[in-house]
């Protein structure tokens, strides 16, 4: 078997491509991960559930190793890992599965307004099916108030779902404290850790986590694979969403995609080894980006807590410049915006709004996400590019002109349309 060779310096840097700064949307697959995956597509293509020949045995062995690698990064036992198609499916299975299993006993769910849409939408559907849902607010730094959480949990609460790291603003919720409260009050604790695994240390036992959603493509693994951690002691019971041959302890039927499982496992194994060093590198890049922008641009604001935050995310509002217009101006960068114009609904980011960020400021935000393959040169390029675009657009902005003239934008009677 010949190993593929990929020049790592080309990842996110192909000639002519914009510099990739959208690591919370997705990450490139690490070439080391792809290397491990390839044989399982062709030479060793067996069905991991085939018990009667070597093709199946080899695939099963590979899947079980991957399961151990996934378990290891969160301090779990491999028997507690269920492979899924991704974090959206994991979140659906955790919430719907737990709610429906317990529906004769309990009917209340607690979650947070800044959760990912796949959690919020699943909760909305459960509301239609008779469950009541409490959507906790967040503080201006994006973190929940633990006293509010504790007060929200009743003896009817079946499950509490709070994400580990927010996908838009990168803030880290206090999982250990949340887990302790849930355990004390007798509610299951589910956490969507799609953005947290491999970025911050996680331990399902120390943090009293009962269910955890994991994504492959956010951690340099392939798209189309994820996992759900399901606690065995005390046992968490779920109604399956996908039924069939009873694979994955009956929680999730369907033939496992061996190459994808292997990829997720390898991605976890690499992240476990490299997380600390990588975080230090990202912290350096993050500081460099923020300092570089602040040195030349007044009136810019970081959204979300700066301390309780993964180092690979900076969400910044550039006052008086509209986000989508700004994205057009930084076409050498692949970033995302909280601006209304980038969404189908024409509403600005609900996450920024939940922080209490003014609507007008929410329109001016850009999300910079960087990661394993981001270089110092990428950041320096981004700094220059953003400064140039923001300065140009401010020259063109009537709001910037008013600001310079000392006019309070809020004092004007705007005709909202």
């Amino acid at each position, binding site marked *: 078997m010949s190993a593929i060779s990929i020049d790592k310096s080309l990842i996110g840097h192909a000639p002519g491509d914009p510099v990739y700064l959208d690591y919370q949307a997705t990450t490139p697959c690490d070439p080391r991960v792809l290397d491990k995956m390839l044989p399982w597509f062709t030479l060793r293509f067996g069905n991991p559930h085939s018990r009667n020949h070597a093709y199946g045995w080899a695939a099963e062995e590979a899947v079980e190793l991957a399961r151990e690698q996934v378990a290891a990064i969160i301090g779990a036992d491999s028997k507690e890992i269920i492979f899924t198609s991704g974090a959206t499916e994991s979140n659906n299975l955790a919430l719907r599965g737990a709610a429906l299993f317990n529906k004769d006993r309990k009917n209340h769910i607690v979650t947070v307004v800044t959760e990912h849409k796949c959690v919020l939408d699943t909760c909305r559907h459960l509301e239609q099916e008779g469950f009541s849902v409490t959507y906790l607010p967040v503080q201006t730094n994006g973190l929940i108030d633990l006293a509010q959480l504790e007060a929200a949990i009743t003896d009817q609460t079946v499950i509490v779902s709070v994400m580990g790291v927010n996908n838009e603003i990168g803030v880290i919720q206090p999982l250990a404290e949340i887990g302790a409260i849930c355990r004390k009050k007798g509610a299951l604790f589910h956490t969507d850790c799609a953005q947290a695994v491999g970025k911050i240390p996680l331990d399902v036992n120390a943090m009293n986590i009962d269910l955890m959603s994991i994504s492959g493509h956010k951690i340099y693994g392939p798209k189309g694979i994820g996992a759900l951690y399901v606690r065995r002691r005390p046992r968490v019971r779920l109604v399956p969403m996908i039924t069939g041959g009873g694979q994955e302890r009956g929680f999730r039927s369907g033939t496992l995609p061996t190459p994808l499982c292997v990829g997720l496992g390898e991605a976890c194994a690499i992240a476990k080894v490299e997380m600390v060093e990588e975080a230090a590198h990202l912290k350096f890049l993050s500081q460099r980006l923020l300092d570089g922008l602040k040195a030349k641009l007044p009136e810019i604001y970081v959204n979300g807590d700066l301390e309780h935050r993964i180092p690979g995310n900076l969400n910044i509002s550039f006052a008086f410049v509209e986000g989508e*217009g700004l994205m057009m101006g930084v076409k050498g960068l692949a970033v995302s915006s909280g601006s209304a114009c980038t969404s189908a609904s024409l509403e600005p980011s609900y996450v920024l709004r939940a922080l209490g960020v003014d609507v007008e400021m929410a329109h001016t935000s850009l999300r910079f996400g960087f990661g394993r393959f981001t270089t110092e040169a990428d950041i320096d390029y981004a700094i220059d590019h953003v400064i140039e675009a923001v300065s140009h657009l401010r020259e063109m902005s009537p709001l910037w002109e008013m600001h310079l003239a000392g006019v309070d934008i809020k004092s004007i009677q705007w*005709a909202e349309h």
Partner: protein
Amino acid sequence: MAYSEKVLDHYEHPRNVGSLATDETDVGTGLVGAPACGDVMKLQIKVSAEGIIEDAKFKTFGCGSAIASSSLVTEWVKGKTLDEAAQIKNTDIAQELALPPVKIHCSVLAEDAIKAAIADYRKKHAHD
């Protein structure tokens, strides 16, 4: 979203960016939109004694389509009488820039901006 070439051209080379003196009697100013909605346009016209728009300037806070719409109308109004300029329709702007349905409101805003600038000028001259 992919932008039309004309939107990109106006975004990258905006025509007539700037400000005219709001207090001058021959200048009409229209300020429309709202920061909370993500777009604000300021459009100004300078009108000759003969009632012809001889200069126009804009500043816009908004997406590329909003910037392009306001840039385009500054080009269109120059040389027109106030009545002619008031005839410019958002549909003309949207068609010229090939705006997708989700961006039609940008062209509506540009039409509103011209009308507001004309109204402001006429208000100044109501007692002429």
